[in-house]
C-alpha cells in the first residue's frame, strides 16, 4: 500500500521531520536535536560541521545505519523509522550508494569485482553483471583499470572505483562521508568534477565534509553544530 504522504512531492528523496537521536549515556548526549531537512531529486548538498557536532550521526541516520530516537525519516517517500531491520537493510542496499573516506575496497579483489559486489545482495539477475560494472567504471573514467587490484591504484583512482560501486545499484542517493579526506588537491578536484558530472546527470548527492574546497562546490550548504542544523545561503 502506498502511503498517502508519498503523493505530496514526488521529487523528495529525503524528508527528515523533527528527528532526534539521543545516546543514553550518563549524561545523555543529544547528537541530533529535532532536525528537519528536505533534499530533492538532483540536489547536491554539503553537510559541514566540526567533529562531535552530530555529523556522523546525521550521516548514519540518512544511511539507515542508525535509527532516530524520535521523529520521522522518509526516504523516497517511504517511512523508514517503523521498518524492520531487514527491510531497512534492503532499502539501504537498493536506494543508497555509500562513498567512504577510506574507500573500503577489498584488497584481494580486482577493481571490477569490487564494483560487482554492489549487486550481490540486491537479488538482481546475475547475467551481464560484469558488463554493468564495467559500464559504471567507464562512467567514472576507470574503464582502463578493470582488472587491476586496488593497491595498484592511486588514492583518487580508488575513490573513483568506490564511486562506481556506489553507482552500481542505481541508487536514489549518493551518501559521501569525507570523500576527499584521504586525497591530495589534484585528486580531490578530479573527484569533485565527477560529482558535478553526476549531479548534472540527475544524481542526488549528500556530502559530509569539513573542507571548504568541497562544500563550495555544492549547491546547498547545511551546517550542523551540537545537533542543530542550519541551512546556509
Amino acid at each position, binding site marked *: 500500500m*502506498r502511503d498517502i504522504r508519498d503523493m505530496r512531492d514526488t521529487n523528495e528523496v529525503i524528508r527528515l521531520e523533527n528527528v532526534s537521536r539521543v545516546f543514553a549515556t550518563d549524561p545523555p548526549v543529544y547528537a541530533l536535536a529535532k532536525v528537519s531537512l528536505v533534499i530533492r531529486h538532483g540536489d547536491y548538498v554539503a553537510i559541514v560541521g566540526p567533529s562531535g557536532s552530530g555529523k556522523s550521526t546525521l550521516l548514519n541516520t540518512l544511511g539507515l545505519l542508525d535509527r532516530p530516537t524520535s521523529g520521522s525519516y522518509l526516504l523516497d517517500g*517511504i517511512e523508514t523509522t517503523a521498518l524492520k531491520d*531487514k527491510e531497512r537493510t*534492503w532499502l539501504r542496499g537498493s536506494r543508497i550508494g555509500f562513498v567512504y573516506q577510506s574507500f573500503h575496497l*577489498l584488497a584481494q579483489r580486482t577493481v571490477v569485482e569490487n564494483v560487482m*559486489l554492489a549487486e550481490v545482495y540486491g537479488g538482481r539477475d546475475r547475467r551481464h553483471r560484469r558488463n554493468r560494472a564495467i559500464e559504471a567504471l567507464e562512467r567514472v573514467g576507470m574503464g582502463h583499470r578493470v582488472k587491476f587490484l586496488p593497491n595498484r591504484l592511486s588514492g583518487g583512482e580508488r575513490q573513483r572505483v568506490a564511486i562506481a560501486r556506489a553507482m552500481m545499484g542505481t541508487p536514489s542517493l549518493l551518501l559521501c562521508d569525507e570523500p576527499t579526506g584521504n586525497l591530495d588537491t589534484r585528486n580531490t578536484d578530479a573527484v569533485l568534477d565527477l560529482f558535478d558530472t553526476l549531479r548534472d546527470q540527475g544524481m542526488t548527492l549528500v556530502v559530509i565534509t569539513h573542507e571548504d574546497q568541497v562544500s563550495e562546490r555544492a549547491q546547498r550548504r547545511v551546517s550542523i553544530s551540537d545537533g542543530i542544523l542550519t541551512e546556509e545561503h
Partner: protein
Amino acid sequence: MPPHRRLLHRRPSLRRPSLRRSSLRRLPRVSGRGRASRMDMRDLWAESLAGVLARPVRSALTTLGTVLGITTLVITMGIAATAGNQIVGRFDELTATTISVDVPANRDPLVTWEAAAELTRLRGVTSAAALAQTAKSAALTVRANNLVDPTAVSEQSMNVLAATPELPTAAKGRMIQGRFFDAGHDRRGDRVAVLGEQAAKLLKITALENAPAVFIKGRAYTVIGILGDLRREEVLGASVIVPRSVGADFDVHHVSRVLINTTLGAADMIAKQVPTALSPNRAAELHIAAPPSPKRAREGVESDVNGLFLILGLVSLVVGAVGIANVTLVTVMERIAEIGLRRSLGAARRHIAAQFLLESTLIGLTGGVIGTSVGVVAVVAVSAARQWTPVLDVQLALAAPVVGAVVGLLAGLYPALRAARMEPVDALR
C-alpha cells in the same frame, strides 16, 4: 529478421532508452514493507570462496589442523582394521586347522588307540594324537620324592593322563627339556613320564640330568622330558603324561579325547570324516569341536583396537576445530570493515553469517579431503611395508571429508554469529 525486430534494430533508443539515463532513473516508489535483501546461492559460494582464497597462506595453515585430525582418524582406523585383520588372520591359521574329538566315557572303548593313530591316513590330517584320562586320574596326588616332610608341601594334586607318542606335535608344543616317550616305551610298558611345564615347576623339577622321578600312588616314574610352549590344549602344561600302557596303573584304559591338526582349509571336511574313521559303528556319540567361526573373532579384535584409536583421532579433530574457530574469529575481527561495507551494500545479518559459516566449512572440507587422502596413502604405505593387506572401510573414506566439513561448520558457528551481530555503524567506524 522479423519486421518488428528490424524496427528495434534500427532504433536502439526504443530498445534501451539512453543507457546513461536509464541507470540514473529513480526507482518507482514502493513501500519498504516486507522487502528483504536476497543473495543468490552462486554469489554466496563465490564470495565465500574468494574470502578463503584471499588469504591463501592463512587458509592453508588453518586447514592443517583438520588435515592432522582427519589423517589421524583415517590412519588409526585404517591401521586398526588392517592390523586387526592381520591378527585375526593368524588366529584363523591356528583355529581353522584344529579339531578335537571328545569321547564320552563308556564301558567298551568307543575309540581304539589304533584308530586314532591311523587318522593320519586321511588326506588333510597333518597330525593326530589320542589322550586318555578319567575323572579319578584328573586329580591324583603326585610327589617329587618319597619322603614325608611335615614342614613342606611336597605333594600336588595333578592331572595324569595317558597319550600316544604323537602328542607334542598334535598339541603344537615343544620339548623344553629331554624327550617325549615313543612307541618302544609304550610297548615295553616303561614307567616313564613327561611333565607339562607348569607341572614341572610345581614339583620343583628343573633339570633332568639326574633322572628325577615323580611318585604317583607310591610308585616312581622317571621323568624323561618337559613339554611346553603349547599352542593348543594348554591344560597339558599342568599335567603328567604317561604312555598308554602305563595308564593302566591308574585305571586309565580308553581314549577320552583325540587331537587332530589339518592342513589349512581341510578342517571342515576332516571334521565330517573323523567320527566315522574313529568309531564306524557309533560315530554319532562322539563330540566334534570344529573350528569356531573366524568372523566373530575378527570383529572382537577390531572393536578393541578401534575404540582406543578412535579417541586419539577424535582428540586431534577437536584440536583442529579449535584451530579453525580461533582463526575464523581473528579473521572476523580483521574483516570488520568488510562486514560493515557488505552491510551498507544491503547484506542482511544472515548473509554475513552464511558467508563466514561457508568459509569455515570450506576450510574444514578441504582439510577433510586432504586428510583422508593422506590417511589412505599412509595406510596403504604401512601395509605395503609390512606386507599386509590394507583394509579400509569405503564408508570411512567417504565419511571423513564430511566429518571435516562438519567440524568446520561447528567451528565457524560462534565467529559467524559474532560477525552477524556486528552493528554496521560500529563496523564502518
